[in-house]
C-alpha cells in the first residue's frame, strides 16, 4: 500500500483523487478478504452425511461421497466431535470394526485402518468392503474406538448397507481352500476411456479378520457379453501397491454399457486360486465383477 501511495504521489495526482483511489482499493481488498473467509477450504467438499453416531461424550459424523453404503468397496469419512466442549477433534486415534449380525452367526468385513485425510483438519478416512447387504433381520453394525488426549471411548451404531446393482465384490474359495474376497475399488465412475483399475484382495483368517493379500497375481479380461463377448485393447494388468495394499492397473472401456471383468487370481507360487481364461468355449470366468454405465 505504501508503495502504491508513493507511486501515486510521484505521478502527482490531486489529493482528492488519491483519497478516492485509496478508498476504492481498500474496499476491493476488503471485499476480496471477505470472499476468502467465505472460501475457507471446505472439510466436507464432495461428501454427504450418512449418519451421526454418538454416546455421552463423543459424536461421530459419518460421511460417504454418495451418502449411502452399498455392497462392495466403500470409502468412509469421519469427523469426531467432543460433546463436552462441542469441538471437533484433530488428533484422535480411531479404530473400527464392522460386524454383520446374521441370524445364525456374525462376521466382520475387510477394512483398512482409519487415517487422517491429508490436508484436512478434522477429517479421517478408511474403507470397508461389505460382502452382503443388510436387511430387517440381518444388520451391519459399526463400532469405532476413539482415543483422544482427553477421552477414550467406543461408539456403536447400526448401518444400512444397500445392495449394489452390479457385482462389485465377490467372495470365493480358492484352490487352497481358503476364503477370499475380491473387491472393485475403481473405476467408481467408469467412462469410455482408459480407466484406472483398482482392486482389493482379502483373505479370511477368521470370521473377524480379513487381511489384505499382497503377494497374489490378478489377471483380468474385460468383456461385453451383449456384444459377442468382445474384449478391449491396451488393458494394464493390476499390480500391488504396498502403500495402500491394493492392486492398480488400467481398464479400457471402448463403449458404454455392461462390462464383465473376468479374473484369474494366482497365489505367490503362481498356482491358480480361482478363475478361468476366456476362450470361444469359455464365455465367462467363474470369478468376475461387473461395470455398467
Amino acid at each position, binding site marked *: 500500500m505504501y508503495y502504491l501511495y508513493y507511486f501515486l504521489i510521484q505521478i502527482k495526482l490531486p489529493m482528492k483523487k488519491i483519497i478516492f483511489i485509496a478508498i476504492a482499493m481498500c474496499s476491493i481488498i476488503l471485499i476480496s478478504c471477505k470472499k476468502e473467509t467465505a472460501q475457507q477450504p471446505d472439510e466436507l467438499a464432495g461428501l454427504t452425511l450418512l449418519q451421526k453416531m454418538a454416546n455421552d461424550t463423543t459424536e461421530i459424523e459419518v460421511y460417504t461421497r454418495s451418502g449411502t453404503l452399498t455392497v462392495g468397496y466403500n470409502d468412509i469419512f469421519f469427523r469426531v466431535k467432543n460433546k463436552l466442549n462441542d469441538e471437533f477433534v484433530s488428533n484422535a486415534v480411531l479404530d473400527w470394526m464392522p460386524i454383520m449380525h446374521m441370524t445364525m452367526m456374525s462376521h466382520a468385513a475387510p477394512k483398512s485402518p482409519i487415517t487422517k485425510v491429508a490436508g484436512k483438519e478434522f477429517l479421517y478416512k478408511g474403507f470397508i468392503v461389505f460382502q452382503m447387504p443388510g436387511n430387517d433381520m440381518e444388520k451391519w453394525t459399526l463400532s469405532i474406538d476413539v482415543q483422544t488426549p482427553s477421552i477414550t471411548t467406543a461408539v456403536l451404531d447400526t448401518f444400512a448397507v444397500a445392495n449394489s446393482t452390479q457385482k462389485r465384490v465377490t467372495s470365493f474359495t480358492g484352490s487352497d481352500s481358503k476364503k477370499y474376497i475380491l473387491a472393485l475399488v475403481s473405476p467408481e465412475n467408469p467412462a*469410455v*476411456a482408459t480407466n484406472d483399475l483398482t482392486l482389493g484382495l482379502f483373505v479370511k483368517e477368521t470370521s473377524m479378520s480379513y487381511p489384505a493379500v499382497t503377494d497374489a497375481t490378478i489377471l483380468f479380461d474385460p468383456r461385453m457379453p451383449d456384444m459377442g463377448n468382445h474384449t478391449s485393447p491396451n488393458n494394464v494388468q493390476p499390480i500391488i501397491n504396498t502403500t495402500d495394499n491394493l492392486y492398480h492397473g488400467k481398464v479400457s472401456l471402448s*463403449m458404454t454399457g455392461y462390462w464383465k471383468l473376468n479374473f484369474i487370481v494366482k497365489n505367490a507360487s503362481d498356482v491358480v486360486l480361482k478363475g478361468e481364461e476366456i476362450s470361444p468355449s469359455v464365455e465367462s470366468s467363474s470369478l468376475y465383477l461387473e461395470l455398467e454405465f
Partner: protein
Amino acid sequence: MKNKILFLLILSVISGNIMAQDTTNIDSILSVKLDEVAIISKPLINYTKQNKPLSSIDEYLDKSMNVSLVRRGSYAWEPMLNNMSSERLQLTIDVMHIFGACTDKMDPITSYVDVSNLSDVKVSSGQEGASYGPTIGGAIDLIKKKHDYCHIGWLGSVNFGYESNSNLFTAATRVKYSNAKFFVDADFIFRDADNYKAGKRTLIPFSQFQKYNTSLSIGVKINNKNTLTGSFTFDNAVNIGYPALPMDVALARAYIASVQHSASYINSFIDEWTTRVYFNTITHIMDDTKRPIVPIHMDMPGWSTTSGLYSKINGAHKRQKMALTLNAYWNKSKAEMTMYPNDTSRKSMFMYTWPDVHTIYAGVNLANNFSWKPMHTIKYGASIGFHRNFVASEFGLNSMHIFYPTMSAGKNRIIVGFQTAYTFAKNNWEYSIAMAYGERAPSISEAYGFYLFNSFDAYDYIGNPYLKNEKSIELHTALAYKMKKIKWNFGLNYFHILDYIIGIPNTNYIAMTLNANGVKEYQALESVNIVSTECGMEYRPHPSVKTRVALSYNFGRDFNKQNMPLVRPFSFKAGLTYNIKGLEMEMNVEGASKQYAHSAFYGEKAKPAYAIVNFAAGYSIPIKAHQLHFRVGIENMADTYYSTYADWNNIPRKGRNFYLNISYTFDNRMME
C-alpha cells in the same frame, strides 16, 4: 441444316461418354459431358438428350472408362478414379467441398445432387485436380448448371421416366426465367424404386430407395463486369436399401448453399475472378430395423457440416495463361453408434465412431500454361496448403486414448504438390507427357475412425492419428490421332504412391463387431504402384453411322507384390450409333475379363468375366414450337447375372431392364 450439325455435335459429345476421351481432352482432364447443348445455348433441359435421360449421376459416370463406381446397392455409388476411391480423390460439387456423413461410405457426395442440377462433370486425373484441393488420384467436380444473361424469357420442361426392373419411377421438372440482367432457375426431381432383379430374375432384397432433390438458383448481373449468384440445393433420400451391406439407410439429407461473385475482364491480365462462399450440412441415419436377422440392433447416425471459401483468378498475358486458386474450408464430422442389448434391462452401448473431428484446410494452387509456339504447350503448377484436424469431443478423445494414450487433440500438416506437363500438337497428332507430385492428409476414418466395420473384408477398422501424409509420384502420357472419319487415342497413368494408407491386421486387438475377422489398424504401406491404361477408337463410315471401341487395362500392386483391391480388370466397351431424321438408335456392348489379379490378401473375391448388351432408341416430335421426345431402351438384353470388380461383396448388377422416357420441353424463343 444448322440443326443437323448441332445434333451431330450433340451426339458426338454424348458418345464421348463411351469413348471416354476426346482428342480435345488429350491432357489428363477428361470431361464427361452431361450438358452438351450448353456449349451453344441452353434452350433445353439437357439431360433429356442423353442416351438414357433421367439416369442417375452414378449411371452417367459409370459410362466413362476413367471413372468407375463402387456399388453397394441401387443408390449412392462411390466414384473411383485411377483405381482410387474417395479418400484419395477430391470430390466436389461446383468446387465446393462436401463430405459424406457416413462412416461406411454409403453417401458419397455424388448422391446429394442429381442430374437435374448439373450440367457437366469434370474429371481431372492426378495432380490436374490439385486446384480442387490435395489429391492423389485426381478430382471429380460436379458442375451445376451455368447461366448466361440472355433475354430468353421463360423456358422449362417436364420429364417422366419408368424402368421395368425395380419399378423405378422418375419425374423431373424445371422452370427457368432469364433476361439480360437477371435469372431464376428452379428444378425438382423425384425417384422411387423397388427392389431390383439381377440377371436370371434374381430378386435382390433391400435394394429399394426413394429420393427427391430440388434446387434454386438466382443470379443478378450487377453491371457489365460483375455478377452475383445465389444457389441452394436440398436433397432428401429415405428408405435406401444397401443389399451389399448389413445395414440400410433411413435418411440421407443435405442442404447445400452458396453465394458467388464473378468479375470478368478486370484488367488486361485478369480475365475472371470468381469467389464463392458456401455452407452445407449433411445428416445420415443408418437403419437395421428392416432386416430380418439382426444380431444386435444399432443406431448409427452421422453428421457432416462444411463451410468454405473458394476464389479463383484466371489471367492471361501474351502466351501465358494463369490460374490462381484459393481453397479454404472448415468441416465438422461426427458419427455415433448406439447398440441396444437384447436384454432390455441393460444399458445401451454407446461410442463415437467419428469423435467430432474438425478439419480446417486452407491452400493455394497456381497453374500456368505457356505456349511458345502453337504446337508446343508447357504447363506447370504448384500448390501448398495447411491442414489441421482437431478432435472436439472430450468423450471421443478419451476413447481414442484407449488406442493412442499420448495422442493430442490437434494435428497440423502442410500439404504440397506440383505438376508439369508438355503437349505437342501437330496436324492430326497430339502427344502429351506429364509428371507430378502430390500429397494428401489421411481421411477422418483413416485418422480417427473408431471400430468402423468394413463388410468388404469383415474387419473392424481403427484410425491412426499418427499417419504420415500419403505421397504420390505420377506420370501420364497420352497420344491421339484425329481424322475426319477415324479417331483413336491412347493414355497411360502411372502412380507410385508412398506411405500408402491401408488397414493392416493388428492381432493384439480383438474385434468389437459380431462375427468380424479381427481388427485392422490404418498403417502406411511402403509403396504401391498403380497403372491405368486405356485406348479408344472411333470410326464413322457414314455421317449417320458411328462405331466406337474403348479398352482399359489396369493394375495395382504394393511393394510386396500383393495385388491391390478394387482395381479394374481388363474391360471394354463398344458401341454402334445410327441416326436418321430425328430417330437415333444405339447398341452397345460392355464387359470385362475375369478378375485375374484380385486381391485375396486384402479380402477381395475374384469376379468372373462378363459381357452385356444394351440397346436404346429415341425419337423427337416437334409440336409447334415445343418438343416432345421419346426414348426407349433395353439394358442387359440377355438378362446376364453378373457383377463387376466394383460391386461390393459381389452384389450382382441389374438384370434385363426396359426403360421409357418422355420429355416435353417448352421454350418461349421457339414460340416467337
